[in-house]
């Protein structure tokens, strides 16, 4: 048996062992503090990406396989039915878009008259989620598009319901996305009823945002929609973000306590839409 010749450990404290442990602990504590202060984690992740990337693809492969099997097992008729339903929906959506394109053109002309800068146009691409920051505290996702697909840090990700997050760092074939619910994330938003502009911070839970800077005097109603304000230039204006879910104001405090429920269901995501800005239209 391995270790039979080390029986003395049962009775004798091995001093070198404890010292070694203490040494390692000190080293790791220093590492943790360094990481918390200087963000070593993100940087070392970027450096070691070439090593970690295949790991993520490997981990994702069973999910992909399951999806394929699912597709095979699904009945032909069922697929046909689904296809028909989707094409019908597509036609309906196209019809809905018809007046919009006219309005867009009108809007562009009006903006030209006002000498206002043009709206940014976006190409959207489907991004598959490879991995989530498994720790529920860090609201991170890994997507399967990387710098070779034209992804740059700062690009926006959304779902059909609302804004989801932004690209934080890129590797060759994958990128890390910081969700708007990450405690380090701040998103400039506007209250849709009052037009009051403020900043929504991530709460660390994948469902909620917190808005700590709304003064007591500001009127806010429950269920009010929050949209991106376009301040700061990173997020385009007017995209839905969240709905006010709880608000309270206590006497003697200067700010309301507001939490809002994120519209994009971030904990059930499988795909995200990556929004890549196309070249701005010259007025």
């Amino acid at each position, binding site marked *: *048996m*391995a*270790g*039979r*010749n*080390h*029986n003395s*450990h*049962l009775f004798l404290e091995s001093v070198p*062992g404890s010292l*070694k*442990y203490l040494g*390692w*602990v000190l080293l*790791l*504590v220093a*590492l*943790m*503090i*360094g*990481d*918390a202060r200087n963000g*070593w*984690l993100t940087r*070392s*992740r970027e450096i*070691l990406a070439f090593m*970690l990337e295949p*790991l*993520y693809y*490997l*981990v994702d492969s*069973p999910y992909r396989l399951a999806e394929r099997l699912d597709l095979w097992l699904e009945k032909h008729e069922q697929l046909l039915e689904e296809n028909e339903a989707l094409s019908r929906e597509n036609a309906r959506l196209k019809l809905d878009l018809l007046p919009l394109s006219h309005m867009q053109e009108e809007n562009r002309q009006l903006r030209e008259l006002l000498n206002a800068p043009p709206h940014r146009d976006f190409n959207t691409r489907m991004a598959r*989620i490879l*991995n*989530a*920051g*498994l*720790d*529920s*505290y*860090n*609201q*991170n*996702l890994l997507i399967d598009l990387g710098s070779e697909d034209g992804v740059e840090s700062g690009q926006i990700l959304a779902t059909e319901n609302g804004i989801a997050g932004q690209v934080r760092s890129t590797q060759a074939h994958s990128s*890390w996305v910081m969700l708007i619910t990450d*405690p380090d994330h701040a998103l400039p938003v506007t209250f849709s009823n009052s037009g009051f502009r403020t900043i929504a911070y991530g709460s*660390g839970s*994948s469902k909620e945002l917190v808005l700590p800077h709304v003064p007591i005097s500001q009127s806010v109603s429950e269920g009010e929609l929050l949209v991106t304000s376009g301040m700061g230039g990173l997020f385009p204006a007017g995209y839905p973000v969240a709905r006010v879910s709880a608000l309270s104001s206590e006497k003697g405090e200067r700010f309301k306590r507001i939490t809002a429920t994120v519209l994009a269901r*971030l*904990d*059930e995501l499988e795909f995200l839409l990556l929004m890549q800005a196309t070249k701005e239209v010259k007025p």
Partner: protein
Amino acid sequence: MSAAIAWPVVSGSLILALLLELLSPGLSAVSVLWPPFVSLVLIYWCLETGDRIEMWHAVALGLLLDLSRGVILGQHALELLTLVFILQKIRLRVRFYPFWQQSFIIFLLLFCTLQLEVLSRYILGYPIDHWRIIINPLVAMALWPWLFLLLDYLHQRFRQRQFK
């Protein structure tokens, strides 16, 4: 001389455990129930091969886990290191416990090492997931006997093949 250690089985199972742990379904509520595979497999090898699993193995494995999971650098490393350190002291006794008693020891071990996580996160100002701290060791406790049987089977087979 003691029997040769089955390094291919050890490293293979640890890598597999790492992949399994990475398979965890991310942000959804189920992720709280995802067992700590790496800790469990490391515990098994610690019990079986004792001092052959050294502290730096635990640190290296922990750092790899930190990097791939995206938590604070050093958090898992500290947990696994402490696991190995404590197990080296008590392994000769724990090895001969019945399953249910071993499971209970593992619950205690994981619960205690998770407190390190709580402490460090609290000091550094990171948010803490309270459910995980309770549920994760419980899940590990339930999984332990099955994992033990599986790994023991693999280990024995490898050894038999070596002695042929």
